[in-house]
């Protein structure tokens, strides 16, 4: 066995976990914003922004998955990597995998609360966005660490 299996698992974990998180986050925020927009169609702009915010984790996961895949030569044409390198790719995927999963879900919850706030106070959408961004910080940090770990291999 060479390390490609482990590296593939790492890439898959990064994409799938962060993707699940984003799907849940964007999903619940989307339900809330559908309710808000049915009450007042003029809110669709700020609701859309709030709904999109938990979507970035999935993109971060995709990014790390791709960096791992190209680094480990999974896209074809690369030299085989050692088992140890494979393990390192796998572990490097953990920060964005789990960080993305949980932060996207919680960011989605904050976005739902923010959408409810925008319904009552449409002029306060900036604050709602800011509150959701506070959660995103940790996905961004996870992305950074995953990226540094992968490029360090």
């Amino acid at each position, binding site marked *: 066995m060479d390390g490609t299996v482990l590296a593939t698992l790492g890439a898959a974990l990064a994409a799938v976990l962060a993707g699940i998180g984003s799907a849940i986050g964007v999903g619940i925020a989307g339900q809330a914003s559908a309710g808000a927009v049915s009450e007042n169609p003029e809110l669709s702009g700020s609701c859309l*922004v709030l709904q999109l*915010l938990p979507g*970035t984790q999935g993109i971060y996961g*995709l*990014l790390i998955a*791709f960096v791992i895949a190209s680094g480990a030569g999974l896209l074809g044409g690369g030299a085989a990597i050692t088992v140890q390198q494979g393990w390192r790719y796998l572990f490097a995927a953990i920060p964005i995998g789990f960080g993305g999963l949980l932060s996207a879900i919680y960011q989605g919850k904050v976005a739902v609360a923010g959408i409810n706030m925008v319904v009552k106070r449409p002029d306060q959408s900036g604050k709602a966005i800011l509150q959701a961004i506070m959660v995103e910080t940790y996905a*961004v940090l996870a992305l950074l660490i995953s990226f*540094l770990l992968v490029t360090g291999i």
Partner: protein
Amino acid sequence: MIVEMKRLMLVAHKADEANILKALQDIEAVQVLSISDEEKPSDALDKVELRGAKLTYSLEAIKPYAKKAGMLSPRREETLQEVMDRIDAGVELSGVLEDLVRKKNNCRAEQEKNFSLISALRPFENFPYPMEKYVQQKHVHFFLGLVAQKDVPLLQAQDYLSIELYSEGSTVSALVACHEDDAKNASSFLKSIDWTDVVFPKMEGTPRAAMKLLQDRNEELEKLILEITEQIKAHAQSSAIIEDAADATRIERDRLKAATELKRTMATFALEGWVRTDEIEKVQSAIEKVTDAFNLDVRDPNEDEIPPSVVKNNKFVTPFEQVQTLYSRPTYGGIDGTPFMTPCYVLLFGLMLSDAGYGLLLMLGSWLYIKLKKPTGMSGGISRVLYWGGLSTIVWGVLLGTFFGLSLKEEIGLFPLWFDPMTDSMTMLALCFGLGIVHILFGYVLKMKVAFSKKDWQTAIFDALSWIFIISGLVMYMLPLLGIALPEVLSKIGLGMALVGAALILLFKGRGKKNPFKRTIAGFGELYNISSVLSDILSYARLFALGIATGVIATVFNQLCAMLMGGSGILKILGILIACVLLVALHLFNVAINTLGAFVHCARLQYVEFYGKFYEAGGREFTPLGYRTKHIQVTK
């Protein structure tokens, strides 16, 4: 800069009231405050509000048919007179529309009713007699209803009943007849089986004929509805008239609302409100044009009166006021952070988006939007912020990033001019933290400035300067440990500064407290904030991460499309076609999502890490009496 506000008190003749309010609305300079002691709401205001509601209703009704204004077309410009002249026409048109909509709704309701009648009659389609003939006879009792198929044999087994069935299926429509003496028996028997009584609607003819009649009527109605819809569509072409009338009504309503805030005597009225100091003369001359019999008194606000906060800046900085407003307006006595935040915002925004191609796209896009749409207010501000952000993105992209995800260093050896963060990630992190430290120190410097302007030198020295000493001192001390060569004396000075800063905090943080023990505790508590300063600095790592998110994702998209083009023969041509479309779509998506990300994350760095040090949030909005229109722009 926060504009100085004055409290204004105007007394004039009641006869001039309407004209003076009109003049004040025209100059948009006075926020009217309520000093009214009248309880009853004004009838005129009620009337105007009702008219506004009607106009809005008919606008909603024609919205699906009206010509949509293009995304980029600016608001129509009209003079006040033009708008006001359209009220009558708009009200008339909206009355016509209201009638049409009501007619259409009536037709729909009748259609619904007919449909339900038809479906009620359907089981009796084969009933051969006219319905009006179906009445109870003297000696024969009739039951009309639906019976379950399984109970039909049971029904037929009763020899005192005569039965006719009209349909097939799981429930069967039936007419049951019996002698009047057996009516009680029959009724209780029917209750024991699966039987539902049915009553014919009050119609003539056989059910089949009645159904035909109803269907014809419905077709007629459908035609009528189409006709009415065509009429509504025809009127929708002149939706501009109703829009104007609605805006004119808004203008009138605002003025009448302001009129309810006034205090009145037999012959005079008094108006109290806020006005910007630099607009007092404008107000004075506007009233002078109406009358010379008035008394205008302008004074400074009292201690217990909180004026609204208005900020004034130069042309470059003004759009960024909207970024500040998204957070909070400054308190009246505080500081306007916009001029200081603006350069930081532009600088950090570009580093986050960090792709020269995307910067170009953003800059061109927002330039076009500004030129064509001529946006004002929040969207106007934000589009200009994005314009400058785009420019900064181009610069950063050339320095360290990519061009639409392409590393041009490999292609033509041009970029990046400075270094490549993908291979040199530690330098990039150092750059981010370095910018962060400068940003935070700038925040503390502004805190000193605020404190000095309030003549509070103790806060300036002990709460702000001390932290500047600690942060910059520690940085100077730590740099050699990270392998960056500094003259040894500098690092010693750094350590000294940090110690002086810490000592200042330890000794003077609790300067309000007499007890030296409590004082030291307060000092230690404040010193513990070093951890929050540290997390503030680490927070700037997002600059790097968001830069990766843009650049690497763009590269990923490029590689995906390159794979598509990798086929041979016809596949290659197809692949290239798909890839071209996909490239445009994917890059547009990427630029949109990352612009959103850069905008909000950059705003967060300003709000939390920067404003947190010196800004006093919570100011009130200045809402002068003016033209708050929705569809048009009033020109003078």
